[in-house]
């Protein structure tokens, strides 16, 4: 034997997290470091220490997500390039949005959102076409379009951020302050989460279902914009807080994940019932859908927990109490309790299958009420986004 027993695992030994990261990953990290440092040198003077903390946190989070999921890193680079390009085109004048060809038709926030919406509609259709016609090509196109749509949405939000300052320096704020803006974020987050699982499970046949809820959100955005919601408005005093910048996005990871699980639950129920049908057979296995559903709800629950806690801390600072039983807060609690119950049933009682799928569909309605219904039907301290 040429190899001694001691040497046998030598080349495998102790991989550790650091050696798993290759040169590309380090480049990625370096790129983000440069981005964060540049932002700090340019705008650091305008930021308070919390905002600096948030910026660094976002940098680290992006680095982590990029390491974990390579496509997201590539995606962020594109988003970065196009955002910077649009900002450069804008220069210091909002009027450029009307005059410059690229801005007017492609990259101003309104155009970017229009492209985002159109592409989400198209990719919904393409996903279903792929499923029904058994066309891998259509599915691949759909997947690409979903990426691009998310890219447009993301760039649009970045550009809108800048536009708000150009519109009036006093008004400038991160675009997570009203229902219109957070709905766009909802579309992007849900789409990206779906894309992750699509890649992980190497099956694109569930896409149409998830994209349906995104399309519905896009429909809402169009309707809402027609009522003037897209206008850039200044922030009311209660929203002028660094808390908003983390509380709201964290919430929408939760909402997006819950929405996705509900749409997958529909796919699950269809598969469960009509599995003899040749189209339905292309939908991934029940236990795969079930697995994604669980993971989505777990992810959503984790983020929703954080978001609610951050919300409580914000409330303590803005309203003088970490919990006021305000309708929005209360509904967040209801959503949270609902999914806590769901998780317990699954983990400790081992519930699986159709009942859990139905439950996550009901969960979507509870969630929907929490983030839309409360604003529409109930009054409270949460002042943003009244319909």
């Amino acid at each position, binding site marked *: 034997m040429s190899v001694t027993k001691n040497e*046998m695992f030598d080349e495998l030994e102790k991989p550790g997290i650091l050696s798993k990261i290759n040169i590309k990953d380090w480049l990625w990290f370096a790129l983000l470091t440069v981005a964060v440092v540049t932002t700090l040198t340019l705008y650091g003077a305008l930021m308070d220490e919390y905002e600096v903390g948030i910026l660094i946190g976002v940098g680290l989070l992006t680095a982590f997500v990029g390491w974990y999921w390579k496509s997201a890193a590539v995606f962020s680079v594109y988003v970065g390039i196009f955002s910077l390009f649009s900002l450069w085109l804008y220069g210091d004048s909002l009027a450029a949005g009307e005059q410059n060809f690229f801005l007017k038709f492609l990259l101003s926030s309104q155009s970017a959102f229009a492209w985002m919406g159109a592409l989400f509609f198209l990719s919904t259709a393409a996903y279903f076409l792929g499923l029904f016609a058994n066309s891998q090509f259509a599915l691949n196109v759909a997947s690409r379009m979903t990426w691009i749509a998310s890219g447009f949405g993301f760039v649009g939000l970045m550009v809108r951020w800048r536009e708000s300052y150009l519109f009036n320096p006093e008004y400038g704020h991160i675009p997570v302050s009203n229902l219109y803006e957070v709905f766009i974020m909802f579309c992007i987050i849900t789409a990206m989460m779906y894309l992750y699982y699509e890649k992980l499970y190497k099956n694109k046949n569930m896409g149409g279902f998830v994209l349906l809820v995104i399309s519905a959100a896009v429909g809402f955005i169009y309707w809402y914009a027609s009522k003037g919601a897209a206008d850039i408005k*200044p922030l009311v*005093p209660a929203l*002028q807080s660094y808390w908003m910048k983390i509380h709201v996005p964290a919430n929408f990871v939760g909402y997006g994940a819950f929405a996705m699980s509900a749409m997958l639950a529909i796919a699950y129920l269809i598969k469960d019932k009509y599995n003899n049908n040749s189209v339905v057979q292309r939908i991934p296995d029940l236990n795969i859908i079930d697995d994604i559903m669980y993971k989505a709800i777990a992810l959503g629950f984790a983020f929703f927990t954080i978001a609610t806690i951050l919300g409580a801390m914000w409330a303590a*600072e*803005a309203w003088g109490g*970490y919990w006021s039983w305000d309708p929005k807060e209360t509904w967040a609690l209801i959503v949270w309790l609902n999914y*806590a119950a769901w998780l317990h*049933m699954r983990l400790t009682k081992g519930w699986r299958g159709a009942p859990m799928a139905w439950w996550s569909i009901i969960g979507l309605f509870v969630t929907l009420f929490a983030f839309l219904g409360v604003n529409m039907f109930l009054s409270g301290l949460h002042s943003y986004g009244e319909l």
Partner: protein
Amino acid sequence: MAEVVKKPQKSGSKRFIEFFGSMELAITLLATLAVASVIGTILQQNQSYNDYILKFGPFWFELFEKIALYDVYAAIWFLSILVFLVLSTSICVFRNAPVFLREARHFRTNVQLKSLKTFKHQKEWQTDYSVDDVVVMGSKFFNYLGLKFRPSKGDGYQLIAAKKGGVNRWGYILTHMGVIIICIGALFDSKIPMMISEWSGNLKPETRNISASKVPDISRIPPSNASFRGNVQIPEGGSANIVFLNVRDGYVVQELPFAIKLKDFRVEHYSTGAPKSFESDLIIIDDKLDKPIEATIAVNHPFIYRGFALYQASFADGGSKLDLNLWSLKDKPGTSVNKKSAVFDEFKINAGGETLTAEMNDFRLFNIQGVIQDDGSTKQTNIGPSITYKLRDASGVAKEFVNYMVPVTSEGVTTYLSGVRSDATQPFMYLHLPVAENGVEKFMQLMQKLSDSKTIEKAATTTVARTMGQASISNEKLAADISHSMALLVKQFLTGGYEEVVNGVKSKVPEDKQKEVVETYLKLLQSVIGTVYETMLIEQGQKSIENSDWAWFDMALQAMNTLPYYGAPIYFELASFEHIQAAGIQITKSPGQDIVYFGCVLLMIGVFFLFYINPTRYWLWLDQQEGKTRILLAGVSHRHTRDFEKQFDKAVEDFDTALNREKR
């Protein structure tokens, strides 16, 4: 007692623990809590009881009150659900934690081959290496996989038990302890102590609208209270050493161990007029301090002093000083008296034959309204200061008025606005007074002239003479008659507007002539008042009468036409003011907050451990069989079986590669 129990019965406490620690109860409680919470979001909480009576009627009102639906989150039954949830979670943790921790620590070196063989994930090899050699390999292998392991020897076999992700079990403990700690922290900040003193009769909420100093002791809480959340309004220059705590439809007074003085309050506005920031400069006066502390608070930027947190919550008028001209509209039209008043003042006035109580309710420096621009778009614009007041008659019926200080342009016409309504749920109806250099005075002067019958008759005579002169009729008697009835016409107009004039005609003139007569009358009316107006202007020294004067006159006529419906014998003109604001300060003391935050941190960490750390175990069983070494690798994970499948397959592949390296 002495009787022998045949069946081994579970003891009471054990059954109690089993029931409360059961998953069924936990889920039921979670669901019940969720449903109960809905009630409070649908039914607006802590409104005035009168509103509820109006909404539900007396029967339902009382029923809802009995089950505390107006303050659900402080209701006994609601708190009981919470207590049960905490109890259930505690028992759950109490029961599971020791088991889980033991499990997390142990390597399970006592497994048997038989049970390993039943595992879903397993792989067997035969090799020429000795058992001891493979033990060394196995250790390296588990090291490589990042697992902790423990080798052990048994009867004719060796075993390496390995594990990873025991932290997940800590996740369970942290999550559930987090929930318990949050609830305990919240308990410290709850209204329970207050509810207890209320039940025991030591505290009784005040429902009357009286000044804080008059509130009796039974409705006061001493400064020693550990936890509360209340509000107080402090006018600029004023100070307070109490806050009000809302209790259902009343309040109690919470005394503070220090006083807060409001030095200045500022509102900044965006160019649209929407508020941009609210800030208060406070001075804290405390015996314990050598000298008062100054602090500025703003929304999202509270100030914390001695564990009391001071928040900028709202703002209001703090009793602005108002310099008013009270213009009589009925008794002696066009005359005014000056009145120095202030917001929140009440005073009596005699007007229109009755005694009215004027209640000065509010002053607003900024009024932001959508004003239609020339290009048809609406722009948010500040239309200037306004006062709001009520006039209450002897029987207690009140009308509410809002008067703007500076002229307001709406639909191209610029006028002084005075809104009136008799019901707070209705929109205001507006009186538009024409604008002149001296404010409303010119209009009032005209009103004064018109109230004098001699002036009217003179003007009527002039008008008649002019008209008749034109028609060359000279009949003195007729002329006198006509001018007399014209004077009457003016009176009719002033008491009931055009409508009164029209009604007068309708009662006297046959139907087919009515239209014609009305037209003539209105023309005459306008020319008489016009004559009075012209005379007035000339008396005031004006040389010629311009088109702009007649435009003003048209507006004055319109104002006179609506004046009879104005509903008040008096008009309040705001001549000048001194703006005094009040800041609504919320003061809280919440000793539970840090406990709650601590629980939150545990919860957050715990949830991530639970979801993202997956406890897995591997075993490597080695024994000698027919001269060869048998290796059995088995693995199991707590959950995520799909992911583990891949992990296990990869591990098998790696082990296989290593084992067979020299063969490659």
